């Protein structure tokens, strides 16, 4: 956590040195508004990674919930806040469906959520026929575009999500069980933990967060579009992993995902500010993400090598002494 925080700090310093536009208030606010979404989804993804699973349908849950919220308030003319509440409930339901299929049918989370992403995305297309839902009521625009003091509102929500998830993982029984399941599902079951119930809960929370992100994005754009959240699954996983959450489960802190998201956002921002060729942007950002992920692993490999060398030296010395 501290190491990855330091990496973020160094990147921020590098960015502000290399481009005068980086610390510009407008640029920073736009950056933070962007990272709020990946950060939020990343925190949810971290919960799933902690139990050794993941959800690739988050983007499609977000766009479906955003579209449903838009249709409820525009087409059906429902109260905007009621519409948002219903969309959040839908997110919980969609996440729970993922969780139920994965646990009850004993399937792999990656395969199921790829499939379900297709289903949710398809439903969105059927509902919208590919067109955006426009004329989202002005009263909710502040959720996406507004600021609370210096902070963009979406980022305030990200901080709220982080606080709630941190309390869950660090202070509650359920949180401890999440880590236990990530260590070993079998051992957790033998300890009397209701493993499947907790796994489903994690998918439901992921669904809720995805839906929240989708709604905020709709409020930001002022329209509901089926294309919302296309990059969210991969970026959220990358954010978690960069933030030190192990793909194998049991290790990591959800707060790391927010730092990871910040690193990704700063990289993308720098690429734009430094005027990297448009066609190279994706390659450069991908490379930097892989480099950031390898950071911890490379230092472990180096440490192992050093230990091996020390051991060999000791053995050689022993043999020499015996020979003498």
């Amino acid at each position: 956590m501290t190491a990855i925080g330091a990496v973020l700090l160094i990147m921020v310093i590098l960015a502000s040195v290399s481009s005068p536009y980086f610390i510009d208030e407008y640029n920073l606010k736009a950056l933070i508004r962007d990272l709020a979404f990946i950060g939020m989804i990343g925190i949810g993804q971290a919960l799933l990674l902690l139990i050794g699973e993941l959800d690739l349908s988050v983007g499609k849950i977000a766009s479906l919930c955003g579209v449903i919220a838009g249709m409820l308030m525009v087409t059906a003319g429902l109260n905007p806040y009621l519409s948002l509440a219903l969309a959040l409930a839908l997110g919980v339901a969609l996440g729970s469906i993922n969780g139920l299929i994965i646990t009850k049918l004993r399937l792999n989370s990656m395969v199921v959520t790829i499939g379900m992403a297709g289903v949710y995305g398809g439903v969105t297309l059927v509902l919208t026929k590919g067109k955006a839902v426009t004329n989202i009521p002005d009263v909710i625009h502040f959720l996406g575009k507004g600021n609370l003091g210096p902070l963009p509102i979406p980022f305030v929500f990200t901080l709220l999500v982080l606080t709630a998830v941190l309390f869950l993982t660090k202070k509650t029984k359920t949180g401890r069980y999440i880590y236990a399941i990530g260590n070993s599902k079998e051992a957790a079951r033998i300890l009397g933990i209701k493993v499947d119930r907790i796994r489903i809960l994690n998918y439901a929370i992921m669904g809720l967060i995805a839906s929240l992100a989708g709604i905020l994005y709709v409020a930001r754009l002022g329209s509901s579009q089926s294309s919302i959240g296309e990059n969210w699954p991969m970026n959220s996983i990358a954010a978690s992993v960069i933030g030190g959450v192990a793909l194998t489960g049991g290790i990591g802190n959800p707060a790391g995902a927010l730092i990871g998201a910040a690193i990704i956002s700063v990289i993308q921002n720098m690429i734009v500010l430094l005027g990297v060729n448009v066609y190279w942007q994706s390659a450069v950002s991908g490379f930097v993400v892989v480099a950031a992920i390898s950071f911890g692993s490379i230092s472990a490999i180096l440490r192992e090598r050093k230990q091996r060398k020390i051991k060999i030296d000791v053995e050689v010395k022993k043999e020499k002494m015996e020979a003498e």
Partner: protein
Amino acid sequence: MTALEARNITKLFPGVVALDSVDIAFESGRIHCIVGENGAGKSTLIKCLTGVYQPDDGEIFIGGRKCGPPGSAIFKKVAYVPQEIDLFPNMSVAENLFLPYTQSYFKGLISQRKIQDKAWPFLEKFGIKVAPDQLVKDIPISSQQLLQVARATVNEDYEALMLDEPTTSLTTDDSAVLFNIIKRIKADDKAVIFISHKLEEVFGLGDEITIMRNGEMVSHSRIDQMDSASVITQMTGRTIDQNEVFFARRAPGEKLLEVEHLTGARFTDVSFTLRAGEILGFYGLVGAGRTELMQAIFGHLAVYSGTVKLRGIPHKLGDTSHSVSQGLIYLPEERKKYGILPQLSIRENVSISVLDRISSIFGISPAKENALADEVIAAYDVKTPDSQKAIQFLSGGNQQKVIIGRAMICRPKVLVFDEPTKGIDVGTKTEIYRMMRKLAEEKDIGIILISSELEEVRRCSNRLLVLYDGRQAAEFEAQADKDEILRAVIGVKDSARKNMNSGDRWRKIQ
């Protein structure tokens, strides 16, 4: 001619002399049986002879040539069939037979048809009635067992064939097929090394017999100079040391666990009663169904029929969470895999079962959690600098103490210990035995002890049940005669019949 020979080999593990100056030689064209209790050093010997372990002292000769360090090419001349099935389940029979394709049969690209054609004669020779293109996971266990032997001998350039308990998952008919094959291999002038717990097989097949105990070679002779009784005597030894007993010395209390006619995948019609303040031992060969029985009672595995009562109340099966909340706790055999949460700290491993007790609306209290962990560390004498250390870095014995401590803070009524001293050194073993006795005597709980070490169950159990092939073979009182128990373990029928109807017998003892 001597095919394989070990001279004066010694192997030390921390706190244990696993092999103590063992001299053993295997002649071509002879079947040489090795017997001994669990922990006698058989598997350590095998691992030295097959080049897995480096002996701390002594030399190994294969075909008269001295062997280099483990992994040397010369060890390929010892064909080895391990006890557990060690095949690739999702590959075909033919692929399993020939992998890793180092034999000269195959050069360049591998054609599935070619290896399948090559496989037929081997399958016929070994009486394996499956097609070469079937996947290994789809063929019966007995065929898998025979396929392992076929695979080990596919490269005919071996001097000695070593079989470790090859019949544990074979029926009598399958075993007969295997024995014919072994006799043919013997006729090919290869040395055969046969390790088994089943004495009737040893006497039916062997030419020579070596008996091991506590890492030493106790005797070596021709099989026709031995009889079953003297083998058992020499195997177990009448050592007077280590005679401290650990069963609970108090009158048994209320009935805690009543199991009636329980049947599951690996056990059939098992009934027994456990009372407060007693230690009930379960003994049997590996694979006799002891672990499966206990995991089913605990709710981790399925029960097909039968009932379980906990303190007189019918117990809901199939729900581990319910079992734990009702005070029935199972401490698994595979400690590293199922017992500990390796990456979590000692503190988190201790508190995981009682988080309600140390939580308020503000969440888990760090102060209370630390106090709880320190309490367990002190009470169970866990050797660690502090409770923040990840449990995976503790020694096996200390991990076991943490696990026992964790179980005890749940205030259990029934504790099931599955091989609690597996891989634990002698000194710590005694500590754990004392701990079990104290729990039974003072905390009024009932303890079930599953063990594959006869000495361990004999010294720790108030009563002892023997399972054979998933069925109750016999029941004994504390400190029963070793020979009697061993006979029941290997399925000798008369002893089993004498001790049947364990329920009636128990009433009589009372």
